[in-house]
């Protein structure tokens, strides 16, 4: 009975809890507790969904009993079950961290509103991943986006406001482009259901309308996923947002947009059209390579560690798109793996940084001089996350880079293999700068003494840091899921 409703519950849980929180404005701790419970319940739902999909193939859920393609369908297969697990997993783990962090950064009377917006953003992201309807993707994009703008604007620095505004302008242009693209698709096929679109598109492939639709969707979603050079909104938004928001958005928001692009390129338009008829491989690959190189270099010059990690996020999107652009099983596996690995790695790094900022009050490298002695556990988690970001063997990051390497060699592109090694060295430089400051510099004389971070902050940070090691050694689950997902994507709409 309840198994049948799992897809609806996945989105409904956070969506239903969001307006409930409005009544808990006077009890912020209760609001936090409800949010935490909902996030863990959503994680349970997505774990059950992944299990069900793994064993029994795609699940379809018809809203209001209107059968697809007429009604709105939620459709879960291995690809989006995996993405759902990433989103709900990160939101569940970030919640114990959120309590102290949010209390420090958000005025007390706004905490319940903050969690309302957080749950709406969460519901929106889950909705994007789960829905099988093109217009529904647009609506959920906007739900998550509007909630994210509000969350970012709650940052303490007044620059958060302008960062949020820039994100609003660029994000809206992105989703409006997506809307135009969907309009073109509807014009030619008369359907909005993704599976139905995939079936009807081949008949009208060879029209300029469909090519225009493709272009609008590609550019629109690329804006949302911060594909270089459309990433300009990202560094400021991540830098000035409250710590907890940065952790959540960095780990999930761009990932979901990447999933949408994967879905459209591979499932809806099909590999032959996207990478055969249209030369998307030749468009995406150079952008991905530039997107890895330039933001990585920019990251090494940042004095603000949060901004440095934000630029590194743009570079990591480049890695995912690189895997994406090979249009091969190995490349797609690398992309799917990095969706997962980067989510846990970057969340661990931002959490460790959040815990440090909580104590020293500044995210600048100079302020972090010598803190490793006072905060050994937090810095150790940062180092573990950093190693995974660089791609050192026995960490999750290595697994991705290894698959990217294999995919590049399989495609006969050995310069890319060299390039990957070189860019990993750049990551080593920027992570190294932080480690150098924290471990090998003296605490400036007269600095306020700091204590180790509170266990409530430390525990989730370490959970994710350990996860990035565990999934670097015990790789069966992510690789298995990624392989299944890659196969599914290359095989058209299941």
């Amino acid at each position, binding site marked *: 009975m309840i198994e049948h*409703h799992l897809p*609806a519950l996945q989105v*409904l849980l956070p*969506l*239903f809890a*969001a*307006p*409930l929180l*409005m*009544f808990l404005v006077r009890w912020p701790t209760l609001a936090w507790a409800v949010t935490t419970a909902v996030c863990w319940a959503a994680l349970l739902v997505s774990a059950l969904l992944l299990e069900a999909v793994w064993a029994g193939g795609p699940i379809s*859920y*018809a*809203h*209001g*009993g209107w059968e697809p393609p007429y009604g709105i369908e939620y459709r879960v297969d291995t690809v989006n079950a995996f993405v759902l697990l990433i989103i709900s997993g990160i939101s569940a783990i970030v919640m114990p961290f959120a309590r102290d962090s949010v209390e420090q950064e958000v005025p007390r009377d706004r905490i319940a509103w903050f969690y309302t917006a957080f749950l709406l953003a969460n519901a929106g992201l889950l909705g994007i991943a789960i829905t099988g309807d093109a217009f529904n993707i647009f609506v959920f994009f906007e739900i998550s986006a509007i909630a994210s703008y509000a969350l970012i604007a709650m940052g303490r620095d007044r620059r958060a406001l302008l960062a949020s505004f820039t994100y609003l302008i660029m994000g809206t242009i992105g989703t409006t482009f997506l809307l135009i693209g969907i309009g073109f698709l509807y014009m030619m096929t008369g359907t909005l259901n993704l599976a139905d679109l995939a079936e009807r598109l081949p008949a009208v492939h060879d029209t300029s309308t469909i090519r225009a639709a493709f272009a609008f969707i590609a550019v629109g979603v690329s804006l949302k996923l911060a594909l270089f050079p459309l990433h300009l909104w990202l560094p400021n938004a991540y830098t000035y947002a409250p710590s907890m928001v940065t952790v959540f958005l960095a780990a999930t928001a761009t990932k979901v947009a990447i999933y949408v692009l994967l879905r459209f390129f591979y499932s809806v338009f099909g590999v032959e059209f996207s990478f055969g008829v249209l030369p998307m491989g030749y468009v995406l690959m150079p952008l991905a390579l530039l997107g890895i190189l330039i933001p990585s270099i920019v990251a090494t010059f940042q004095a603000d560690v949060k901004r440095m990690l934000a630029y590194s996020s743009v570079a990591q999107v480049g890695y995912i798109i690189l895997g994406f652009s090979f249009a091969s099983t190995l490349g797609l596996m690398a992309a799917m793996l990095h969706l997962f690995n980067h989510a846990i790695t970057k969340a661990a790094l931002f959490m460790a940084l959040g815990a440090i900022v909580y104590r020293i009050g500044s995210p600048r490298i100079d302020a972090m001089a010598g803190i490793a002695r006072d905060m050994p556990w937090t810095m150790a988690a940062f180092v573990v996350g950093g190693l995974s970001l660089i791609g050192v063997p026995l960490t999750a990051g290595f697994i991705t880079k290894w698959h990217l390497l294999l995919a590049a060699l399989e495609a006969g592109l050995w310069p890319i293999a060299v390039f990957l090694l070189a860019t990993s060295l750049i990551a080593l430089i920027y992570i190294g700068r932080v480690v150098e400051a924290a471990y090998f510099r003296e605490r400036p004389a007269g600095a306020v003494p700091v204590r180790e971070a509170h266990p409530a902050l430390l525990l989730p940070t370490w959970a994710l840091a350990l996860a990035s090691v565990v999934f670097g050694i015990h790789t069966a689950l992510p690789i298995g899921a990624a392989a299944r997902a890659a196969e599914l994507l290359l095989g058209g709409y299941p």
Partner: protein
Amino acid sequence: MNPHIVLRVGAKLLIPVIVLFGLYVQFHGEYSPGGGFQAGIIFAAALILYALIFGLETVQRAVPPGAVHALAGLGALLYMSIGIWSMLAGGNFLEYKVLLADAQRAEILGIILIELGVGVTVATVAITLFYSFAGRMRPEQDGG
């Protein structure tokens, strides 16, 4: 205190009609063009017109912001509760033909409740938007 007598009398004549029209659009939504979205906005327009002419405080005494917030949440909750109710009754989310024994009556019941939820939320959210922006302007432009 308010010199605009034409506006005041005009508004007093217009507002009941606007509210009535809002209710008409609300309850005719399932037969003819209309529904919760449009009705909610029309309803909010009546209140905003009143606030423009008689001042924000007057309106907020009758319709306090706290109540508006609560109603916005309740409307959304009503909408989703109908969905959950139909899940409990054995259908899919929002499949309201299973709510009553008679499928046709259940459809009508479902859509009226759904539209009520939409109408309440849209009206209160529009009013909230007006309140928050108008409230911000107060200190500088408190003329009339």
